[in-house]
């Protein structure tokens, strides 16, 4: 009895997966969230649909240090990940996954798709740093948006996308390895919970949305 009680903290720890940068893999739980898809033709004007994350209305800086509203992403399919550029382990793999997605799209599909990297480390990932990072990784400005924002807005966006992250030291974060596909109106169309496998479902979702 007493011995069991001493085990409690260990057992609790064993239940916890500190994802990503510590090297753990999330269980394979792909899930497709089906929201009422809005009609593209009626969407262009007026308010985003009720399930659109663009209601958040936050403002960000891109790699050119230009201020952009979140809702300015509306109109294209968005493939979004929240990472930090000093991360050695999972983040390069997330970027690699996104590039793999990019390279599997047709020129027409690509013309309707944009890739978004949102930093969870706004102090270090300044627009300048994001610009350098984008160049190092050949992230085409036509198709790739890198965003630096206020910590409260980052937390809010993470909440909207179901991303969890936490600073674990001066230099590192743990965070979910989630890649989110947003439809043109900013509704979550697909959440890829895991990196490293073929992003088949993610690509299929984008192709469907672009079709």
């Amino acid at each position, binding site marked *: 009895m007493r011995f069991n009680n001493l*085990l409690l903290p260990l057992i609790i720890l064993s239940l916890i997966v500190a994802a990503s940068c510590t090297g753990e893999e999330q*269980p394979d739980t792909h899930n497709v969230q089906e929201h009422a898809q809005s009609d593209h033709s009626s969407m262009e004007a007026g308010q985003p649909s009720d*399930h659109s994350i663009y209601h958040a209305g936050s403002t960000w800086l891109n790699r050119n240090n230009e201020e952009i509203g979140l809702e300015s992403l509306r109109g294209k399919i968005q493939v979004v990940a929240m990472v930090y550029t000093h991360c050695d382990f999972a983040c390069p793999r997330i970027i690699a996954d996104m590039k793999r997605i990019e390279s599997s799209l047709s020129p027409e599909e690509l013309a309707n798709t944009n890739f978004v990297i949102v930093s969870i480390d706004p102090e270090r990932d300044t627009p300048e740093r994001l610009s350098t990072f984008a160049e190092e990784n050949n992230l085409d400005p036509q198709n790739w948006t890198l965003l630096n924002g206020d910590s409260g807005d980052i937390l809010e966006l993470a909440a909207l996308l179901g991303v969890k992250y936490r600073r674990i030291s001066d230099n590192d974060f743990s965070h979910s390895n989630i890649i989110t596909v947003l439809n043109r109106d900013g509704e979550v169309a697909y959440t890829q919970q895991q990196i490293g496998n073929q992003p088949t479902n993610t690509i299929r979702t984008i192709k469907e949305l672009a079709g």
Partner: protein
Amino acid sequence: MKFITYVFACFFWAGFLHARQTPPDDMVKVEGGVYIPFYNSGTEEAEAQVETFYIDKYHVTNQDFLDFVTENPEWRKSMVKPIFADEGYLKHWEGDLNLGPDTGEIRNSPVTNISWFAARAYAKWKNKRLPTLDEWEFAASASEYEPVASRDSSFVRKVLTLYGQPQPEKLPPVGSGQPNYHGIYNLHGQVWEWVENFNTVFITGESRDGGGTNRQFYCAAGAAASPDTENYAAFIRFALRGSLEAHYTTKNLGFRLAQDVNNEIQ
């Protein structure tokens, strides 16, 4: 005349200094300190430094929230975007601006059925913010007599007893019972509370080391008798936060606000 002006100026300045050091209405100052988070991944520092901050003595009430939605129609229950609040949002209210037949009874009770987005919007409206997880846990580790009572077994037992009590149909008004060391009411037992960074908690239902451990783990009666009972109370909060999503609302989840101490000087 000059002398009088001088005296007035002195009074004014003294008043100003006083105001700077006095918490805003219905808030208390929590002196910063070191706190040991319930859980860390092993790669993190074991201790977290909490800076001095202000926190509400009481939960935000139904009346407070009614004032907010009156001025901010987009947060009324018929208007709120489903991405910001699920269908249970403010379901205990009769209408958008109507608390229903029990108005008199629940007006000063904690508002619940509130999403994290709604709580944050309210905080922004008040020029305040939600407490961080560390701030909340630090403030809530105080008993009536000590600022940090996580090792005080009678306090810990009391917290667990409060967690075990069923929620009454109508919540009592805020400010019932004894405040803790800092002067904060009802941190434990009445309702759970949103914190700013609730979504920093990682948890899965999966046990990594095979059979049997889950059963031991969920044996709460055993844990309640151990010296680590405070960990168990903290675990309950930890697990709750890990299970939440930002648009969730439940009848036993409310919030209170915090503020930076240097906020007023700006």
